[in-house]
């Protein structure tokens, strides 16, 4: 599959860039792009940020996910404590990052 120029990937692995994640995702939507966001490693703590649910709702179920292993490693319960705005289908693996690389014509790391 060729990368879609209308999809915009944000690969989030730092826990200190939520304002940039939200700012870039909103700007991407304004520019007519579909954000596709993956939170991994210590960035999964950002799921507890009050802005996370609105971000998840904006992206939609197919286009936002977190690394379930990272979430569990950091002490959260990946069965009983699914982050607000997500379903258990969005508790994913690093393969979601692979899908970002393959599907998105635009890409930034935060």
């Amino acid at each position, binding site marked *: 599959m060729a990368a879609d*120029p209308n999809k915009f990937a944000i690969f989030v692995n*730092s826990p200190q860039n939520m304002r940039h994640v939200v*700012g*870039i995702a909103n700007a991407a939507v304004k520019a007519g792009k579909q954000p596709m966001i993956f939170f991994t490693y210590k960035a999964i703590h950002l799921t507890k940020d009050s802005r996370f649910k609105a971000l998840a709702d904006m992206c939609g179920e197919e286009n936002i996910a977190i690394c379930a292993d990272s979430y569990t490693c950091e002490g959260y319960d990946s069965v009983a404590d699914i982050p607000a705005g997500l379903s258990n289908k969005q508790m994913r693996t690093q393969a979601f990052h692979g899908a970002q690389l393959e599907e998105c014509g635009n890409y930034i790391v935060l």
Partner: protein
Amino acid sequence: MKILQVYRSEPNNDIKTLVGILNRDREADEFNLNVENPDYDMLVAKIIAADQTVCWW
């Protein structure tokens, strides 16, 4: 090849060296995220225009 260098913090000497090599003979642009109110619309436009974006720590 259009490359965009984005900085989340002040780049150190290692980053400056790598950026110098990466930008050689290429059309290069940059964006500083390490400000109070980044212009995210401008950043997204630059990412869309670039072939590759590197967002440094």
